[in-house]
């Protein structure tokens, strides 16, 4: 393991939320957390996923190239 790998508990929670809430396979199960519910979780966490729009505004739109999906 290299020293650039950080997996402290806090980092892990953030990283897990970033993946398991936002990514992963979505199927039409009988009950699935909807996008709106995920937003609720983030609000509960005082978490705001910055939209691309907000991000660019905050930064003076520098990363426009980098936020595109890579081809």
């Amino acid at each position: 393991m290299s020293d650039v790998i950080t997996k402290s508990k806090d980092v892990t929670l953030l990283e897990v939320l970033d993946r398991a809430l936002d990514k992963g396979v979505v199927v039409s199960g009988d009950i699935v957390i909807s996008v709106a519910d995920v937003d609720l979780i983030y609000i509960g966490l005082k978490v705001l996923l910055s939209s691309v729009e907000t991000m660019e505004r905050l930064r003076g739109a520098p990363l426009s190239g980098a936020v595109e999906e890579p081809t």
Partner: protein
Amino acid sequence: MQTAKKELIYLYCITKTKPCRSNLEEIGVRAYPVYFQGIYAVVSKVSPDEFSEDNLKKKLADMTWVEKKILQHEKVIEEIMKDATVIPFKFGTVFQTEENVEGLLREHGLEFKSIISELEGKEEWGLKIYCDLEKFKDSLQNEDGKIKEIEKNIAVSNKGKAYFLKKKKDILINNILNERISEYTRDSFDRLKGPSLDAKINKLLSQEVTQKKEKMVLNAAFLVSKKRIKEFDSILTYFKTKYAHKGLEFAWTGPWPPYNFCAIRGQEK
């Protein structure tokens, strides 16, 4: 008449090999496989008190609960991942019955099998780059010719002119800062994308979320062949050295379940 509450079925992940579940009890989850025509869904029974549609919505407001459950979700998948290639599901995928889970396997079985074959021998790794903006600005003051020139002018100007020159300097620094961050994050992403099989750029998380003084400037995911993982370590070490004095911090984590690389048809991301 009293009816016992019917338990619900929570789905963690799907595999092609029979999942070994010896360590799952430590996580506090009695997970077991549901089998259908060559694929296994790893599930556990959950209580409708927590996971019925209405109750789940209420529970989601309880962050302690969410934290516990989402870490369990992750740990179960990581445990299964030790011996098998997995397709991880989104947190909170719940079915009324095992028959409904079988229905899912029946409907999407071929697609799941092909995704698993694609993912065999591969791992997901994540890179988040954080930037200490003040440190970055300081490094610019010492390096950039234009900024140095304005500083010289400020030193020999009267109060009024110096004020405007300082404003001009601040704008210039911010512009250069944005350009450089963009350049460095792009450079980092491209170099890591090179030896990757696939790569994605995700939404940035605000400082409110990360609870860090440094600002997140890149959030990316890479699909990597297990055999080539050492190459990434050397690239990361190189970046760390190259950009440390600019206040850039590289958080490289993994291996993760391939959350970012297993979308099924009709699912956008």
